[in-house]
């Protein structure tokens, strides 16, 4: 095996034009956050699943997402130190590492990925959607920031359906609590027509995003819907949904992807175009961010492309048909929150993964189980067995963490992946497929 140069010369990472554009947008957003104390813009912290960017924009609030900050800290290899800091201050080693990364970052002065201080939030919009930990996370932040906290509960879609009682509950929360408090915090009066305008824009970008995600049905797939997918969802899951910037970005991305399809090209990886698509995978679970490139490389080096992933649906299940509907502004926001991936029952998650394997003609399912994320992880072993049973395709299970470097064992992950690819090969050649 040829040794990989460890931190030799900074290797150039290949990025396609859309990735560069995305990076620029994110950088602009972080600057806007850091500038807030000077510009006087008020800041709302909130979560990705069930995030109400359109609504926040109606009050001129800038959206700060602690999960995304934790991801950035992970990618920049700072999360490990932050987590240790939080543990030293009394947080358990057992709990969600996003929370600890965020708390540790706060304790170390809240320096954002742009190297500048992130502002304290003026309001915490606790969208309790799809994850119990959110509830504790913002109670912890409230303790520090002592700012108004708005609680928005999204009932869980346990029986696979949205009932009128659920939607009414959410709409009532919007009307009686969320909107009035946002008005008070921001000093801006709520204008439902402004909300409609944003929602209209959201739907446009959503159309293009779905086109991009579904382009993976092509062979070869022009995108990697997990590692690459994370770049693609950035703007729409974050602070850009409902903006012209998002419309432009997704239009641009769509064209770029269409061009790749026309040229018969596979995805762009950090090492350039992927030469050959050998395996098509569906992945369940979030990625690891502390060793993101190394992790991705283990896939593309073997010619494995992820053609669909559940993680890219945590901020909305647009590919299942949901679009923000400006004609029913409050109801549509409720339905959006209700439908996000982690708010779906386990049987619904299984159905989705099975459908992905069939529709994207994948070779099988890979689960990246995150040590500290109960929302995703509890139940994944059953998911794996059930998907295997229903599709007849092999499934594999790896264990890492989102942002805690202590739980990324490269050798283990690589071994598992290699034996998984062998399994796929065997299945293809008919061996072991007797059942």
């Amino acid at each position, binding site marked *: 095996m040829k040794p990989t140069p460890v931190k030799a010369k900074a290797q150039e990472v290949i990025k396609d034009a859309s990735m560069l554009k995305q990076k620029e947008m994110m950088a602009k957003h972080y600057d806007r956050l850091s500038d807030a104390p000077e510009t006087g813009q008020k800041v709302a912290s909130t979560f990705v699943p069930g995030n109400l960017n359109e609504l926040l924009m109606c009050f001129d609030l800038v959206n700060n997402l602690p999960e995304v900050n934790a991801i950035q800290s992970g990618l920049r290899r700072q999360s490990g130190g932050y987590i240790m800091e939080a543990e030293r201050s009394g*947080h358990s080693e057992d709990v969600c590492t996003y929370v600890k990364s965020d708390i540790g970052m706060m304790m170390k002065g809240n320096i954002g990925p742009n190297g500048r201080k992130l502002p304290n939030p003026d309001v915490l919009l606790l969208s309790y959607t799809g994850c119990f930990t959110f509830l504790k996370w913002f109670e912890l932040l409230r303790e520090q920031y*002592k700012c108004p906290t708005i609680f928005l509960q999204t009932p*869980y879609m346990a029986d696979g359906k949205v*009932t009128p009682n659920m939607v009414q509950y959410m709409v009532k929360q919007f009307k009686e*609590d969320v909107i009035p408090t946002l008005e008070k915090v921001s000093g801006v009066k709520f204008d439902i027509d402004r909300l409609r305008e944003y929602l209209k824009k959201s739907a446009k970008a959503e159309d293009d995003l779905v086109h991009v995600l579904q382009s993976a049905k092509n062979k070869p797939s022009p995108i990697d819907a997990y590692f690459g997918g994370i770049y693609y969802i950035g703007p729409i899951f974050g602070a850009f949904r409902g903006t012209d910037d998002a419309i432009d970005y997704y239009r641009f991305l769509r064209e770029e992807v269409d061009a790749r399809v026309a040229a018969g090209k596979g995805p762009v990886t950090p090492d350039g175009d992927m030469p050959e698509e050998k395996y098509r995978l569906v992945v369940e679970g979030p990625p690891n961010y502390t060793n993101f490139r190394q992790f991705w490389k283990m896939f593309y080096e073997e010619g494995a492309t992820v053609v669909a992933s559940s993680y890219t649906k945590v901020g909305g299940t647009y590919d299942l048909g949901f679009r923000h509907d400006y004609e029913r502004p409050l109801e549509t926001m409720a339905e959006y929150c209700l439908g996000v991936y982690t708010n779906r029952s*386990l*049987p619904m998650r299984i159905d989705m993964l099975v459908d992905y394997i069939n529709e994207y003609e994948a070779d099988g399912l890979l689960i990246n189980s995150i040590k500290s994320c109960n929302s995703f*992880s*509890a139940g994944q072993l059953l998911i794996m067995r059930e998907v295997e049973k229903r599709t007849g395709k092999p499934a594999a299970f790896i264990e890492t963490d989102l942002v805690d470097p202590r739980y990324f064992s490269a050798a283990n992950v690589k071994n598992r992946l290699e034996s998984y690819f062998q399994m796929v090969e065997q299945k293809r050649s008919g061996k072991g497929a007797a059942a």
Partner: protein
Amino acid sequence: MTNTTTSEIVERCQALYDDMHFNAAREWKKAVPGRKVVGFMPIYIPRELIHAAGMLPLGIMGGGDNLEVIHGDAYYQSYICRIPRSTIELGVSGRLDFVDAMLFPSICDVIRNLSGMWKMLFPNVYSKYFDVPQTYEDSVGGEFYIGEMREFLHDLEELGGRKITDDDIRNSIAVYNENRKLIAELYDLRAAKPWLAPASEAYLVIRAGLVLPVEEHSKLLRQYIDATSSEDRPIKDNSKVIVTGMFCEQPPLNLLKSLELSGCYVVDDDFMLVSRWLVDDVPTEGDPVYNLSQAFLHHSRSTAAKYEPNQQEKGQFLVRSVKRTGAEGVIFASPSFCDPALLDRPMLQHVLADAGIPYIAFKYAENSGQMQPIREQAGTFVDSIKLWSAA
């Protein structure tokens, strides 16, 4: 019956606790054709509704340290708490084959996801994720909860094949009010004279209420409380402490005994919160479902699984409990990998620190065997409490 001793009562409760086949509930069901049993997990469900339907609410608190988990581990990674795997074990090993319905309260994502797993594993059993509001305005969370309860009542009517009237529910509310009152009396007794009703005994007596019909359990509570006052038990030089964090996966009984052996009188706790969730009587006049929702919104306990809308109130329940019971310290005992308990812990600790209340913390699993470290830690804690109070 008046002469029943505490040890006889505790022995009976211990047998119920040890019985992982739930024979008491099986017999109850067998006694009259058509009877139904509804299982539920921590943390809270309105048992009044199940009772009103003529069914037996059966609390399933995992397998404890009695149950050998053979299949359950295949469903969970090592970094997930124990209670879901031992509960699956109870299910797949047929120990719950007489249970007609299972309820999974909204306590955390593990139990939430287990509700879906149950649907897959036991498709012929009615199972429901029981969602409760985390917002406490009457017109918002209250209406949502009333809607959820009405849906549930409708399902119970289908399951039982009979209508549930408001009077049925009122009657059940009265029966549970009585039960809660007796449990509150037992806690008061423990706070005042902890040597008469040790926590490890009281635990078993209350736990029996999860498998017995409520009327029978109330009788048993009365007997136990009466029996304690007629017995002479030596007063020990123990320190009064509160334990918190045990609201879901239960500690092994040995853990409580170890705390007692190391010099603690446990005078308040959060075991089996379902028995004490509502802190006042629920009115028996008027719309019973509305009354239950009001009780839930405005007269229920604080715990990590609940959102606390008011920052000033965060953790105050512990401070109040310390005052009420005269406790000298707090022990945070949480199941390993329990996000709700462990994420809440630092906030509660800050509140205690501000109030000058000493505390320690450790983790356990329902099947923890080795108690020596816990005994040592608790012993040191008690010694230091004594030193502080002597200073």
